[in-house]
């Protein structure tokens, strides 16, 4: 059974369709790269999956309607870091990571020793245990991104949704980040949905590509993408450049 099933998803912003009739299925331990040009609806798709925007159509999680689920227990989310992180925010890396368990707590929230152990474990997996007491604002871009990824993982989600996670990283940190996500996907069987501009890099790590341009243009493996005559028609010589670079 698919872990995520999206049926005829349409999202409108003030009457204008940002996404139209998107349908796809993801299975456990899939690593899906969501790609497309600026304004193609990549982030909108993610926001719909997280119910951050109203949508038409159906989204099922393990066969159950997403709107009827406490989805936060099943999903780990890494937003675009650069858009919100206040470099002067007074919190240590450990305080940020452990905040990832809030999703699974009832009011009034109380953190137990198990929660702190889970935070230590997540930091250990991402190799940032030595940063636990450092202020978040004093860390490098790559370290901050690992802290936020640890926050997304601390409650052991089945699905990890990453929105342009490498946008602020240098090439070395970017590759290290992709490798970490791939390791989580392979070893922990976490289903990954990763939004990116860069088809070449995503294609290297993802098991499937989902190409959007306000509607679903392509969904399949990178090899299928490169061999697809429809994509040749759609991209022209661009397809060769993408596949050759890969």
């Amino acid at each position, binding site marked *: 059974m698919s872990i995520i099933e999206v049926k005829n998803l349409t999202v409108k912003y003030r009457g204008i369709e940002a996404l139209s009739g998107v349908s796809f299925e993801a299975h456990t331990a899939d690593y899906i790269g969501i790609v497309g040009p600026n304004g193609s609806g990549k982030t909108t798709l993610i926001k719909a999956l*997280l119910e*951050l925007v109203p949508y038409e159509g159906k989204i099922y999680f393990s066969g159950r309607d997403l709107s009827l689920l*406490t*989805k*936060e227990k099943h*999903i780990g*989310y890494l*937003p675009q870091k650069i858009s*919100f*992180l*206040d470099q*002067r*925010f*007074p*919190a*240590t890396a450990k*305080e*940020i990571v452990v*905040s*990832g368990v*809030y*999703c699974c*707590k009832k*009011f*009034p*929230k109380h*953190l137990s020793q198990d929660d702190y152990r889970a935070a230590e474990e997540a930091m250990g997996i991402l190799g940032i245990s030595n940063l636990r007491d450092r*202020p978040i604002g*004093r860390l490098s871009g790559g370290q901050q991104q690992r802290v936020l990824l640890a*926050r997304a993982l601390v409650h052991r989600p089945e699905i990890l949704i990453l929105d342009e996670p490498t946008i602020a990283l240098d090439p070395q940190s970017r590759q290290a980040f992709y490798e970490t996500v791939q390791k989580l996907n392979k070893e922990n069987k976490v289903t990954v949905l990763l939004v990116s501009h860069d088809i070449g890099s995503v294609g290297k790590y993802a098991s499937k590509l989902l190409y959007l341009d306000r509607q679903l243009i392509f969904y399949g493996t990178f090899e299928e993408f490169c061999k697809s005559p429809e994509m040749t028609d759609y991209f022209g010589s661009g397809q060769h450049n993408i596949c050759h670079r890969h």
Partner: protein
Amino acid sequence: MMNVFQQIQEALQYAFIQRAIIAGCFMALGCSFLGVFLVLRRFSLIGDGLAHVSFATVAIGLLLRAQPMVVSIPLVGLASLVILKLNEKARVYGDAAIGLVSSFGIALGVIIASTAGGFNVDLFSYLFGNILSVSSFEVWMTVVISLLVALAIVLFFHDLFAITFDEEYAYVSGIKVKMVNKILILLTSFIVVLGIKIVGTMLVSSLIILPAVSVLQIVKSFRATIAIAGVFAVVSVVIGIFASYVLNLPSGATIVMINFIFFIAAFLYGRIKG
């Protein structure tokens, strides 16, 4: 001639000084706790905006010959929710929403004062406040509201932390962001109304902003930021009241100046320490 210590001992014997210290300390705690969240969320000027609204609500209270605080608390609470709605729904930026409601408040207050007449002196006394004239009723109100603030922060600490750091992620985590925002902003409106009696409409936002901004210069952990902001705020109020008594200065302004000195000290310490 009495030395400073003797003057402070003498001051402590007066009931109005005792009331001022109790009300001031609880007010300082409430304002500084809320201030940490408001400053970090770029909403610190809401204190200023709501104080301006309370200028109008005090005018309404005086016009109706009612207790100004009793009239102000629900009306300023309502104004705070309007600011929140303008920010959320009408796509008005937070600072612009505050400016919009605050200018309306000031204009309404001035119009009521000029047309009704007869209570301008009472109304304008609220511009600068007077902590030394707080009544027992106002002391109790301040204690109750400040304890409510502390209770809300204890109960919603993790939610407030998550929303302050990253509101979108907090929503995705299942935190009731809108409800917590409403609680935060309503408590701010209540504390502001009580604060205008202590430091006045013109200076009440300083009680919210200055302790938080000072502590943010030197502290790197979230819990410590809240705790130390509370300590800075209380010490500023106590020193401010005694300094104003000894030096014969206006108390509200002196409290703000002591807060400002703390800020300068924290700023320099933060720079030296790196």
